[in-house]
């Protein structure tokens, strides 16, 4: 079949009819600012699509909102504010409990549509509205949508970038401002591009990828920058793995992280939201600050040693390090996929853990998944059964729990100077409670493997 000759066709860019090429982050911020285009370095006022707050930072934000806009002021849009108690929930600390009460009073007063309340602290299942960890709840409840701008009063709000949206953390004062106006002044960041191609080895998880990157560029390597993750490896990741990747963008100082929305994203969102959305994609000719390429086949399971997320080391080179406990939980490593991975490794070993192994599902839904999903190859066992057979602690009430220490009676808080392998996101001094605690950040595979030996262990010891 003859094709029409194309010699008269010119590339659109040369006709001058196209805007300058933009990155995904630039496009999202341009859309939010109602401008045709923006470039890195521009300060723009953007409309906020979703604003999230939790029990740690909500009360302060509410206080500022009321003080600045008046006691009778109403939030800019009662359907765009999502209030999620999650940090210090299952505790007898009176101030922590009071902070959840403050969220409730505000949500009732403002008729907030999405308030994931908890009133019965003795039994999380008695609270049908309660979800758990805010970033996972946002995703599971359909609040993360491609092309949108999501701001939250928590640094790990960048997790939502996995959905191809601009998501970043802000402080109480800016939150108060957003509550009143639904807008914020943001500086458009340059983008760092991370290209990962190739089939993901079966002993690696997204946590290993992001630890690799942070170890490469350091905890300040992405300061004021957007981190864009591309390549066939990234495309092969499911949504929760993409969330793990974007979750730790902040640990490199990044402003936001993004993964382009694709069929995986659309499928995930199918049963979760009916709000229309419009994904955007980086132009082929968009300019990036710098590009990093990784040969996935050469990567190995990693840990971040105390006391910095960029203190990268190979797990196999740390096998002499004796540990006291393992913690599997948080927005970073407490999702359904994270527990499935840990269960898979325990199943492959068939042995029992040698140290206390704490399991904290991020949300109620994750908790249900642990108890109902059949682990492939197990002959019909659920994650919970496998965990029980391996001697892990009973999965706890969903919340942030000990990821950041918390009040002294927080489940799995490190109250003595111990060595812990954790699937969480930070290992700064005192992060999980005790100032002299030694925290090794790792993937769920590495955490499970380490629990089985009592030493930091490369998961390939158990996965074949």
């Amino acid at each position, binding site marked *: 079949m003859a094709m029409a000759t194309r010699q008269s066709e010119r590339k659109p860019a040369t006709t001058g009819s196209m805007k300058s090429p933009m990155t995904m982050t630039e496009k999202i911020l341009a859309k939010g600012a109602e401008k045709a285009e923006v470039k890195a370095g521009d300060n723009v*006022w953007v409309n906020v699509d979703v604003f999230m707050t939790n029990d*740690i*930072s909500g*009360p*302060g934000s*509410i*206080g500022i909102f*009321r*003080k600045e*806009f*008046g006691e*009778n*002021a109403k939030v*800019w849009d009662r359907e765009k504010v999502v209030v999620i108690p999650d*940090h210090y929930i299952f505790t007898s600390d009176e*101030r*922590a409990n009071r*902070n959840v*009460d*403050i969220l409730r*009073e505000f949500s009732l007063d403002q008729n907030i549509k999405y308030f994931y309340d908890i*009133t019965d602290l003795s*039994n999380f299942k*008695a609270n*049908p509205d309660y979800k758990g960890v805010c970033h996972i709840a946002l995703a599971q409840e359909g609040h993360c949508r491609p092309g949108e701008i999501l701001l939250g*009063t*928590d640094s790990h709000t960048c997790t939502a970038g996995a959905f191809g949206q601009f998501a970043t*953390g802000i*402080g*109480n*004062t800016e939150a108060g*401002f957003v509550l*009143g*106006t639904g*807008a914020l002044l943001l500086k458009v960041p340059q983008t760092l591009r991370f290209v990962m191609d190739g089939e993901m080895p079966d002993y690696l998880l997204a946590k290993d990828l992001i630890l690799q990157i942070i170890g490469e560029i350091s*905890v*300040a390597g992405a*300061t*004021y920058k957007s981190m864009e993750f591309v390549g066939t490896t990234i495309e092969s990741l499911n949504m929760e793995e993409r969330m793990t990747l974007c979750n730790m963008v*902040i640990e490199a*100082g990044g402003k936001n992280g993004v993964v382009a929305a694709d069929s995986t994203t659309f499928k*995930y969102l199918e049963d979760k939201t009916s709000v229309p959305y419009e994904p955007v994609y980086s132009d082929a000719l968009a300019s990036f600050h710098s590009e990093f390429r990784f040969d996935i086949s050469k990567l190995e399971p990693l840990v971040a040693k105390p006391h910095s997320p960029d203190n990268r080391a190979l797990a196999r080179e740390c096998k002499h390090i004796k540990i006291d406990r393992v913690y599997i939980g948080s927005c970073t490593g407490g999702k*359904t*996929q994270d527990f*499935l991975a840990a269960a898979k490794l325990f199943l492959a070993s068939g042995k029992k853990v040698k140290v206390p192994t704490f399991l904290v599902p991020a949300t109620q839904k994750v908790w249900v998944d642990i*108890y*109902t*999903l*059949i682990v*492939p190859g197990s002959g019909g066992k*659920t994650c*919970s*059964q496998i965990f029980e057979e391996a001697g892990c602690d*009973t999965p706890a009430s969903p919340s942030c729990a000990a990821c950041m*220490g918390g009040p002294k009676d927080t489940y799995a808080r490190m109250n003595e100077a111990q060595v812990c392998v954790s699937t969480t996101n930070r290992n*700064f*001094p005192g*992060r999980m*409670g005790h*100032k002299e605690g030694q925290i090794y950040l790792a993937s769920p595979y590495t955490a499970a493997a380490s629990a089985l030996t009592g030493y930091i262990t490369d998961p390939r010891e158990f996965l074949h």
Partner: protein
Amino acid sequence: MAASLTRISYSSAFTFSASKTSVLSPSLFASSIKVPTFSPLTVKPLCSTFAPHAAHGISFTRHATSTPASVLDTSTKTFHGLCYVVGDNIDTDQIIPAEYLTLVPSNPAEYEKLGSYALIGLPSSYTTRFIEPNETKRKYSIVIGGANFGCGSSREHAPVALGAAGAKAVVAESYARIFFRNSVATGEVYPLESEARICEECKTGDVMTIELGESRLINHSTGKEYKLKSIGDAGPVIEAGGIFAYARKTGMIPSQSN
């Protein structure tokens, strides 16, 4: 993906499990919801000329309608006092450990309490503490830091704790961005940047003066002077008392007396 896995029914999940969890059909609400009584959070006003008002709709102008320069001149501002020196990557867990985050910064009594815990998370290698355990007087008004000061969490409690503790300015080699933004938004401390690694040349207890308008730091104890990067547009915002006060002064949002 979870969607492609088989799932056993929720109720059967508990018939054979020996776990401590119990089968429960959740009641819709707890039998009585305790309605909290607490007094509205009263806050130390940033600017005493503003009277509280009751507004339903909030008008918001994207562009400043008045020039702030004459009102918010930082050219003559100086800070003078003792400095406290820390190193690189001082993260928010060290500035204000998570266990203190139940304190709400917009509550005046809790604001003061936050100040008493500023930098309490620094490791024991810092033998001179920012606030000694039995001290009520706050000694240091200038914090000298290294690279990536304030990294970690977005908690606004970090610059608030420093400000409540009496720090007027931090002078660091570089900042993590959320800490920087929060310092400016709250107006609690000036996040100044040095051009050299001052943290290696200054000692805790050195007497210092910062001439803000000249972007200059003088260490009287060593006799050395240092150039700082200009605070730029962030200066007037902090000087006004944070973004709200600034937004009102420049006409971006209506003043509270309207």
